[in-house]
């Protein structure tokens, strides 16, 4: 299964090109330990890549802010449904929910 990109080479410092390829995966926390370390180190030193990272970070933050809160009544109904399942099992064991 394809994985997020690893940085190539034996250099201690990754190149900008390598970092850019891995950047979004890195910001999503989806890169392996070695890659994460190399990207972090590069971003400390490189202004251009740092700006690129800041841009994507702000986009992610704005997206998270755009999430509408869940309908509280719906959530309460689901919690009640879940709790009642937990306590006494399904209403009509063996049948569908009839929805």
């Amino acid at each position, binding site marked *: *299964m*394809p*994985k*997020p990109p690893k940085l190539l080479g034996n250099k201690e410092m990754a190149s*900008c*090109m390598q970092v*850019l390829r891995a950047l*979004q*995966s890195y910001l*999503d*926390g*989806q890169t392996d330990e070695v890659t994460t370390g190399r990207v972090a180190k590069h971003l400390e030193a490189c202004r*251009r890549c740092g*700006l*690129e990272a*800041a*841009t*994507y970070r*702000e*986009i*992610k933050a*704005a*997206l*998270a*802010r*755009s*999430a509408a809160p*869940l*309908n509280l009544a*719906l*959530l309460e*109904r*689901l*919690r009640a*449904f*879940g*709790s009642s*399942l*937990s*306590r006494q*099992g*399904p209403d009509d064991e063996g049948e569908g*929910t009839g*929805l």
Partner: protein
Amino acid sequence: MPQLAGRAPEDAFERYVLPELEVLARVARSVTRNSHDAEDLVQETLLSAYRAIDRFDGQHPRAWLLTILRNAEAKRHRKRRPFLLREGEEPAATVGYDFSSAARSPEQLVVGEQFDAVVAASLRSLPQHQRQVVELVDLDGLSYAEAAEVIGVPVGTVMSRLHRARSRIRRRLVAAGLAPKRAWP
């Protein structure tokens, strides 16, 4: 790791399933696009999880539940009548942009209300497949693997859709003068 053998099913259900309820509700909303279907989908997921809990080994409860959710949604689709726009469902939004105010692209980011507004509008206008992965990962907080599980595609597909979607959002921000152009080709 606690053994599940000898533990009553309702304990396991309470321990592993109920804490994930809010995540399930968010994902169901992202996947079904209206709150009636989302509620149905979560209920179906909870019922299936309840019936299968004694076979659950306690590893990765969220991933386990998201697989159940995906299967429940697939089942709902097979039963569904031809798609009609139901009451309460929003048609896809079309967004126009005022490019007249976009001057030179700035050296730095211009964050604030306008930034958020452009991002939100861009999200709504993304192609459905891209919008869905952005919602699952950036709004609902799923990992790439969890999002892949829900949609039923490889992780690589999630990655490429997600990264392209964000690049598209980024281009809108550049056009609006709120983000710097990429410094490389």
